């Protein structure tokens, strides 16, 4: 029903207090929208990717990028057409197709998107889900709210996993190895796969509800915790570092 987003490792990010990591994630997501230079934005995103790769490995880092690639392509392709202001780069007669401003906006949007994706992925890839829940509860979020958030974050990979399994099975059902499919056929063939994924996802809803209730979710009385965050002994340092990272990055990359 759910898929683990955790990638086992022993890098420094794994030893970082999850509460501070959660704060750093939120602050970095805000940072991407601050008035910073494009070069600064790109360098910070590259730094985040580098940190992610060093901690979770090249494969996991590449997988994250591939998962957002289709969305990124759509964004980069269509954003420039929506911006009409600024110096024209491509013009057909009197009709301005692409402007310099449009290109800059598309680039900034794409890097922000990559950055936010990597920051969120890194949190869940380097923190076990129970510690994410404990951290959210430390910030006074009720248990049900914390559970819903973590289930949502694991449900998306579950759907991605189903998509991959169903695609595999459809690939095995192709008739002829010599047949070359046109682009339109390939797109058309996506429909049954997506339908199957949707059916699998819908079917899993009552199962998830059943499982939670059979595991005692709903019982009155105080719920206890198997895990604890007490092993993280340098919380203050980690919180301080999280805030300082944001301040320093902003100071370096701000628009002067």
């Amino acid at each position, binding site marked *: *029903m*759910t*898929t*683990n*987003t*955790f*990638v*086992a*490792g*022993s890098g420094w990010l794994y030893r970082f207090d999850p509460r501070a990591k959660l704060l750093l994630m939120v602050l970095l997501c805000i940072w991407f929208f601050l008035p910073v230079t494009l070069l600064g934005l790109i360098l910070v995103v590259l730094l985040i990717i580098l940190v992610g790769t060093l901690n979770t490995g090249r*494969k*996991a880092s590449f997988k994250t990028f591939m998962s957002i690639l289709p969305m990124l392509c759509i964004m980069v392709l269509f954003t420039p057409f929506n911006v009409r202001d600024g110096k024209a780069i491509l013009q057909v007669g009197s009709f301005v197709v692409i402007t310099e401003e449009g290109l800059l906006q598309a680039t900034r949007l794409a890097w922000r998107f990559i950055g936010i994706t990597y920051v969120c992925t890194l949190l869940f890839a380097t923190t*076990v*889900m*129970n510690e994410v829940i404990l951290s959210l509860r430390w910030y006074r979020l009720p248990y049900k709210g914390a559970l819903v958030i*973590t289930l949502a974050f*694991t449900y998306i990979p579950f759907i991605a996993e189903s998509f991959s*399994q*169903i695609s*595999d*099975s459809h*690939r*095995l*059902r*192709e*008739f*002829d*190895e010599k*047949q070359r*499919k046109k682009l339109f*056929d390939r797109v058309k063939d996506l429909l*049954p*796969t997506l*339908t*199957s994924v949707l*059916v*699998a996802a819908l079917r*899993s809803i*009552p*199962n*998830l*509800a*059943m*499982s*939670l*209730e*059979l*595991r*005692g*979710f*709903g*019982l009155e*009385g*105080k*719920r*206890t*915790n*198997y*895990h*604890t965050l007490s092993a993280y002994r340098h919380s203050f340092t980690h919180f301080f570092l999280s805030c300082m990272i944001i301040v320093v990055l902003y100071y370096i990359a701000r628009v002067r």
Partner: protein
Amino acid sequence: MLLAPFNQGKTTLAKIMCRVCPKYFPGEMKGSVCFYERDISVLEPWQLISVCTYVSQNPQELFVANSVEEEIAFPLESMGLSREEMHRRVQEALRTWGLEALKTSSAQELSGGERKRVLLAVMQAIDARFWLLDEAFDDLDEHWRLILKQLIKETGKTVLVFASRYLSTFDDLFDRMLLLEDKQVKSYEPEALLPRFAVLCKDTLPNPLQAQVLDLHHTHRVTADRLRIERRRVSTLSAGTFHLNVDDFSLQSGQLVTLVAPNGSGKSSFSRCLCGLDDSLEGKISFDGRPQDSKELSKKIGYLFQNPDLQIFLPTVADELAWSMRHLGRSRQGEIASCAKLFELDLDDTPTTMSYPQRKALQAAVYYLLDRPFYILDELDSALTYHTALSIIARLRRNGAGILLITHDRQFANKVGQQSYTIKEGRLLRV
């Protein structure tokens, strides 16, 4: 034990008993169910946690947490146990079911048998008064079947096992055996129950594989040479990297080969390589002596997943059978109709509402139409009666296809296999 052929309502009965049906699986229900003199219709499922634990036939549907350890701890947290007590119970359950090295693994990275062991570990940790086991022995290999048998014997709890096949492991295990027949639970004398059950499952009919005449006008051979397969569980460091070596494997047209090996030994990894879904690190797979790439393999070797629902997705049986042939540009209606007849399917039926054996038959029919020279059947028997499974194999094989059958059930393997392989210490060996 309650014995019943498939689709007689065992799982529905189990879900009614743990109060989730008709709550989440709609239907009409009359009468009442009492546990220890308490009518459960006035209770919610979570109130039964210390009374009854349900182990479902499909382990995947019961996973809520993201790792094995969290899965076992989740109900204990709900029960409000102290951390020390939870730790003791979790460690004990992990130890009993051999899951210590997999404790941070996610369900997605576990094999079918390992998932079943996680559910059994959860059941052991909760320590409820009543255990409800729906086909709990099915995905387990012989070693873990014996462990479960031992646990049931020693526990002193009330245990109800639902089964659709009588396994030799069941000998001397149960105080009472019942039969679900014509939607009624019936009690028979022990010596009369198993013969009656065999009749219901059609196991008394002749084995359809015996004396089968094969149409072998084209013979092929698939071989695997010095394959080295690697798989890493990304969610855990303790389980290390999994390796499987295949020095020599071959399958010929018309041949029926079985692969019987322990849970998590790499049966599915090998199958995925053989049919071109995954690549091996080293070695080659050849078809009639010619090395094949993964794309070529996927068109020559059909792989029937354990779960048919991953391979069927269209609104009707007719659409499903026609899907793979849509690019051929010529009508194959006659062929489709005769295939449906052969597999006893109705072309207008809706696959999602069909029974499990029918969905398995449809899955097999799809591949039959594709006319692959070889098929891998992944635990075909785990949810079918022997007779149904044997009938499906016989139909797939009648055009001379070579078949690799993966199973945990030696009884079944002995019924079908002409040659057998196993996996020991990361190496595929001919038995």
